[in-house]
């Protein structure tokens, strides 16, 4: 099953083996979780939204027509799920999502399931990230460090580096893109 593409796994799940969908979840759970975390800003909300995303995807597996990639399809479902979560939270008058300056919402909580394989995968990913960040060009690495480690706002980074605000954002976008490409060149496989 590891040699199959995402689209083949979906066909397999629709036709013969519903459990094949589990491979889709294993392949994409972290990235969907990261997307949800990027939209919601809270780890527990992101985990809930990611779970809802895969549930919704499994329920609507038959609607997948193959005109887009499975990843893109999952991304769209995740985005919609996160927006629904936000609307639901706003209607409940909870300020968990509307707290624009909620630094406490960014606290990372360890995943509930931490198998030895996942630990190894995580350790390898950390090594990969460290290598990717340190090999970034200095002007891009600078913005990443100031944003992620110093937790500075874009305005503060702009004033510190004496750069326009749009330049700071553009550099951060480019830095994240390059990190993504560097990490994809050496993918981490779960044994």
């Amino acid at each position, binding site marked *: 099953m590891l040699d199959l593409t995402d689209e083949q796994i979906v066909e397999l799940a629709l036709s013969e083996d519903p459990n094949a969908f589990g491979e889709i979840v294993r392949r994409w759970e972290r990235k969907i979780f*990261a997307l949800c*975390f*990027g939209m919601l800003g809270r780890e527990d909300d992101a985990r809930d939204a990611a779970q809802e995303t895969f549930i919704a995807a499994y329920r609507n597996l038959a609607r997948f027509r193959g005109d887009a990639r499975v990843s*893109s399809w999952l*991304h769209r479902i995740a985005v919609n799920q996160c927006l629904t979560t936000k609307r639901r939270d706003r209607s409940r008058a909870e300020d968990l999502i509307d707290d624009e300056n909620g630094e406490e919402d960014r606290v990372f909580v360890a995943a509930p399931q931490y198998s030895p394989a996942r630990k190894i995968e*995580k350790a390898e990913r*950390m090594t990969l990230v460290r290598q990717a960040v340190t090999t970034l060009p200095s002007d891009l690495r600078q913005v990443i460090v100031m944003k992620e*480690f110093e937790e500075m706002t874009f305005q503060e980074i702009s004033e510190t580096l004496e750069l326009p605000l749009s330049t700071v954002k553009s550099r951060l*976008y480019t830095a994240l893109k390059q990190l993504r490409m560097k990490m994809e060149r050496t993918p981490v496989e779960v044994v």
Partner: protein
Amino acid sequence: MEILNNRRKSGCDRSDDMVAYIYNEIVGDARRRFELHLSDCMHCTDDFAEISDARYSVFEWQKEEFADLATPQFSIPYVPKPEVSAGAGFWNIFRTHSWAFSAASVVVVCLGLVFAVFMFSDGPENDVAAVVPAVGTPAEMPANKPVVQPEKVDVAAMPAEAKNVDLDEKTTRGNTPAARPVRAATVRSNKRPTPAPRNAAPAESNFADAPVLSNYEDNEDRSLRLSDLLEEVGG
């Protein structure tokens, strides 16, 4: 450059909004517009997913490898600033600069003492001598004023009667200078300390340098003298 080309190909460049949204720095209507676009644009959704994945990897790495590092503690012994009321602030100026005020008062007192000593020092002559130069000194007298030279009388050439005249005769007040007997400066000299010769010991220099109180001759002195009174009584 490849990243920029991909953005241009898609015709959709929301990179600024994307990073601002990921870090929760987009608010209000801009946020809602981006969310609406994200739900409609497949390309931006995939792009957003890639950015989120990379960002979360860095986030996870930062928490795993740096969260347990001890933050260095810097303790700076700040001295708390004492609270000073508005009124006390004025007097604090004197407290904090007491040494300056003390020194200034000492200087003022010393100057006052010096001035007092200067003003009230004994001897009007001293004051006069200090202020007014010696009168009668030929070199110091103005040129316009007539120089009154004492008339020098040769005693040897004087007649006997004149020599026997008691030079301490009473001088009456109101006598004109012409009616008064002429006295020789030398006769009077025995009543005055003889000036020391110039070649004498160092004491003569002091004597020679002694201030001249008055330079007019005794024959011009018309004040009443004790000796004159005694002559009258004694006969």
